[in-house]
């Protein structure tokens, strides 16, 4: 953590960055997003097991600072969102100073202490605890004992269901939706200036929280993220009614890997999955 503060102070003093988006401690162990603009602010920056938020979400609406870059503290998993934003021309690599720590997993519940039973589900299949793309890094990798990945088991369980069972499963989940759009706001890749659900002419998706509107919204939200979702699971974390949104996202990411050998957010140069095609793409399902 001292390393982070040193890096931040130097960057702010030298004017390399205009500000640094990072984490600061709140009461107990909890951390909150924090923007450090001065050297004094840099003292407050921390990175702990409680640094759960995906801060790349702040890149969505950001204006380029007048001088210097935007400093961003991102974990390896969230870094994929930065890569995806660059791939999709929403950000420029040269505008962002990436400070990516070596991460020893984060908590699932930010109000409770980190332990074996309080580890975020995205960490269970993490391959990027040591980041691959960064301007500065810090920390050391420690061995962490991980519980089994229940989400993947649930995906297999849903896949094995009959059509009507699947429908009932999702209907029960989507019925809870209150249309708060927290999933959209927290998602680093949901950056449209006008979301399709806000379009009123024509009204594609019923914007009130009706069963049909909920189904339409969740279906289209997941589809718009198919092959783009980087799996930070922020949608899951912020959902006030605990709909397993990332279950659907992860299923589609798995499909993108198995069908097109495409992993979102891995390479800046690679074209996006839906932005390109291959002549040899499977078309067995087309008559």
């Amino acid at each position, binding site marked *: 953590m001292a390393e982070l503060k040193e890096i931040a102070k130097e960057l702010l003093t030298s004017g390399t960055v205009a500000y640094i988006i990072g984490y600061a401690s709140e009461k107990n162990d909890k951390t909150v997003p924090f923007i450090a603009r001065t050297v004094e602010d840099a003292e407050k920056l921390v990175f702990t097991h409680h640094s759960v938020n995906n801060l790349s979400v702040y890149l969505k609406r950001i204006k380029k600072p007048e001088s210097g870059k935007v400093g961003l503290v991102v974990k390896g998993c969230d870094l994929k969102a930065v890569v995806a934003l660059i791939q999709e021309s929403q950000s420029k690599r040269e505008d962002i100073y990436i400070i990516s720590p070596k991460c020893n997993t984060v908590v699932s519940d930010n109000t409770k202490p980190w332990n074996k039973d309080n580890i975020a589900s995205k960490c269970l299949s993490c391959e990027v605890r040591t980041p691959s793309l960064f301007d500065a890094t810090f920390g050391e990798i420690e061995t962490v004992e991980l519980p089994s990945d229940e989400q993947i088991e649930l995906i297999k369980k*849903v*896949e094995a*269901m009959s*059509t*009507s*069972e*699947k*429908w*009932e*499963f*999702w*209907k029960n989940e989507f019925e809870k939706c209150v249309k708060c759009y927290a999933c959209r706001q927290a998602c680093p890749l949901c950056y449209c200036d006008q979301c*399709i659900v806000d379009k009123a002419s024509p009204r*594609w*998706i*019923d914007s009130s929280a*009706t*069963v*049909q*509107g909920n*189904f*339409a919204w969740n*279906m*289209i939200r*997941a*589809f718009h993220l*198919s*092959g783009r979702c980087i799996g930070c699971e922020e949608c899951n974390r912020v959902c006030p009614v605990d709909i397993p949104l990332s279950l*659907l996202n992860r*299923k*589609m990411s798995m*499909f*993108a890997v198995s*069908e*097109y050998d495409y992993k979102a957010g891995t390479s800046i140069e690679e074209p996006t*999955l*839906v932005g390109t*095609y291959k*002549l040899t*793409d*499977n*078309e067995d*399902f*087309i*008559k």
Partner: protein
Amino acid sequence: MAENSFEPKITAFVCNWCTYTGADLAGTSRLKQQTNARLIRLPCTGRIDPVFIMKAFQNGADGVLVSGCHPGDCHYNAGNFHARRRWAMFKEMMDFLGIDNKRLHFSWVSASEGKKWVDVIDGVINTVREQGPFTQYKDINKETEIPVK
């Protein structure tokens, strides 16, 4: 017909350059076909947003067919290649959400394939007829009190 009086409503999203013209050819050639499909003509399969498919189900369609030019024949060169990826993903997602793939069909029909169009559309109509009305989606419409047209 006597034992099963259900007639499905099929929405077919077709591209202007190939499948629509192919269906037109089927008509002008006086080929016999079932008439359960409502054709919606769009410039290209690349223009067929999956939200259209969802909207069709919302508005009471029992099945949907999406059809366009064969790969390599696209009027806009690559529209159908892009669409192919999108469909594959949309179909996979629909299946995971519990919408039967027997209600969602895709095909390539060129402007000269009037006969293929008849085979495809009859096939789709027969498959969906076997499935019966799409009550799952109609029920959520009812709960929402949006009238099904």
